[in-house]
């Protein structure tokens, strides 16, 4: 059984890197992010399926999955969420305390399977102001170890520092 290995820099406490966060004004459209590959274990797939209450047999039942159009166990399509959070640096704006998710678009290629090593290329493709709020839009191009496209994800966040006086000023 393969043991999951999160990148060493991964940090659960988003406050720990809050002061290193850049403000929306400092982000430049076109900037690319330093991501790390992430190997997806069967345990992560099933933890994710349980965390989203999605008990499709193709994520859990090897025999059912084998006889399906997929020919074996797969991950739920939105498994790209933990993949991206594992891949991004801890001070990336996607981890800014208080950032709000306004919506996302995912286009899928091949499914993620247990043991796949997933690579994520990411860049900021837009930022804009709307009704007094500051939005970011990034593209995540996600591939597996065979360079097959897993997902093209376009989406962003409403960035707002909240709570901490110093960060609000930023």
């Amino acid at each position, binding site marked *: 059984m393969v043991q999951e290995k*999160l990148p060493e820099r*991964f940090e*659960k*406490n*988003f*406050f720990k890197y809050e002061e290193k966060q850049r403000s929306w004004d400092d982000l430049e459209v076109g900037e690319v992010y330093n991501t790390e590959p992430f190997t997806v274990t069967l345990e992560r797939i099933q*933890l*994710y399926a*349980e*965390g*989203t*209450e*999605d008990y*499709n047999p*193709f994520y859990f039942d090897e025999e059912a999955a084998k*006889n*399906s*159009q997929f020919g074996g166990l797969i991950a*739920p*399509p*939105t498994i790209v*969420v*933990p993949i991206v*959070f*594992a891949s991004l640096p801890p001070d990336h704006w996607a*981890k*800014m*305390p*208080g*950032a*709000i*998710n*306004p*919506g*996302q*678009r*995912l*286009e*899928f290629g091949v499914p993620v399977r247990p043991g796949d090593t997933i690579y994520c290329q990411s860049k900021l493709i837009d930022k804009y102001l709307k009704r007094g709020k500051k939005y970011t839009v990034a593209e995540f191009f996600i591939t597996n170890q065979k360079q097959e496209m897993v997902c093209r994800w376009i989406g962003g966040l409403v960035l707002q520092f*909240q*709570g901490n006086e110093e960060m609000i000023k930023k």
Partner: protein
Amino acid sequence: MSEKLEFDKIELGYELPSQSKHITQEKINKNAEASLDFNPIHIDPEWCKKINLLGKGTTIAHGMMTLSFMGKIVTDWAYPGGGFLKSLEGKFLYPVRPGDDITNYAQVIEKHPRSDRTSFVVLELWCENQDGVKVGVGEAAVTIPE
């Protein structure tokens, strides 16, 4: 194995069976562990109270958790029938909070015939809370190879 979906037999306007989810802080915490998204807006009730997050001072569920529910109603239909999820899009219109009951809906709104086993349908997706407020809207495309 369930019956295969056949593109020609899928009717515009067909509504998938709706699905409901009850949201609790425990479930949001579990989703944070599963998705590796530990933003305090989801998992730190004290901080949310302190900053009066979104005017109510409670945590909110992950938008991607809502999107995963929107995707699940589609894959529960498409996967057993031999289909593939081609795309999934969601906009989050209103916060989902602990205690909410969220019901997800999906309806076939477009059919795109192709001759190379890549015919696909587009489904309109929406979800509402217990007060009938739309918390999310979106679309999914499903390839039907048969």
